[in-house]
């Protein structure tokens, strides 16, 4: 019995060792082989193609939409950076805790955040329109919680009760 238990424990340890070693080794290989910069959009779009099983025609259309959206995204990104810098500058200025200027800058910042979310939602729906119904449902379920900044675990049905 002792021998059997020893063999079983050894097998378990071996299995766990193989599990973690495989993962570590592959992660090490992949971080060297693949670009991780967000500026490189090719791997992300490849993920979209692979994950949603897009056809060549769908992928081509989505790539075009993605490329067309990026300048809008860049412009919004630039405006957010400027707005953040202004809010930070006003927040660090000695005086009233919330000055009139800071209040206006914060309002402008939240308006801009809404604008960004709207642009992102519009883009998500444009992309979803290139997919079939099932792909689009999966894509929206994955992307919309992120665009809205809410947890994907929030259950919309919970509000019905």
């Amino acid at each position, binding site marked *: 019995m002792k021998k059997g238990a020893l063999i079983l424990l050894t*097998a378990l340890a*071996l*299995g766990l060792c*193989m599990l973690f*070693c495989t993962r570590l080794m592959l992660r090490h290989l992949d971080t060297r082989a693949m670009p991780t910069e967000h500026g490189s959009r090719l791997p992300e779009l490849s*993920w979209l193609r692979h994950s949603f099983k897009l056809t060549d025609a769908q992928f081509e259309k989505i790539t075009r939409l993605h490329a067309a959206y990026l300048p809008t995204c860049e412009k919004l990104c630039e405006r957010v950076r400027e707005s953040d810098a202004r809010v930070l500058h006003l927040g660090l200025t000695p005086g009233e805790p919330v000055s009139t200027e800071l209040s206006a800058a914060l309002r402008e910042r939240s308006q801009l955040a809404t604008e960004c979310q709207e642009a992102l939602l519009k*883009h998500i729906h444009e992309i979803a329109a290139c997919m079939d119904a099932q792909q689009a449902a999966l894509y929206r379920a994955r992307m919309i919680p992120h665009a809205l900044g809410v947890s994907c675990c929030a259950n919309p049905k919970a509000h019905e009760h």
Partner: protein
Amino acid sequence: MNDDELHRLLRQHPAQVPLASSFDREVWSRIEAESTRTLGNLVAELFERTLGLFARPLAAAMTLTLFATGGLALGWQWHRHDIEEHFAVAYQQAINPLYRAGEEAGR
């Protein structure tokens, strides 16, 4: 040779096998255990017998191979899932101006 004859011969030449001192005690404890069989005893016995199976060379080799292969397969799956998540998050971040602004400011 009929049975009576064999019986007589066996009675004339009893085997002189030396028994271990604990033999009688073990026999009686087994008889006792058999007579008081509970669910716990049965489970323990089943567990013992199952563990005993792993001690056989072929079963041991198969168990080790199975666990090693299982670990390898699970590690591969885990890695694939990580990669999927990595690119999913990268895609979400690439199209989100709010995230990108925060990320570039943080550099």
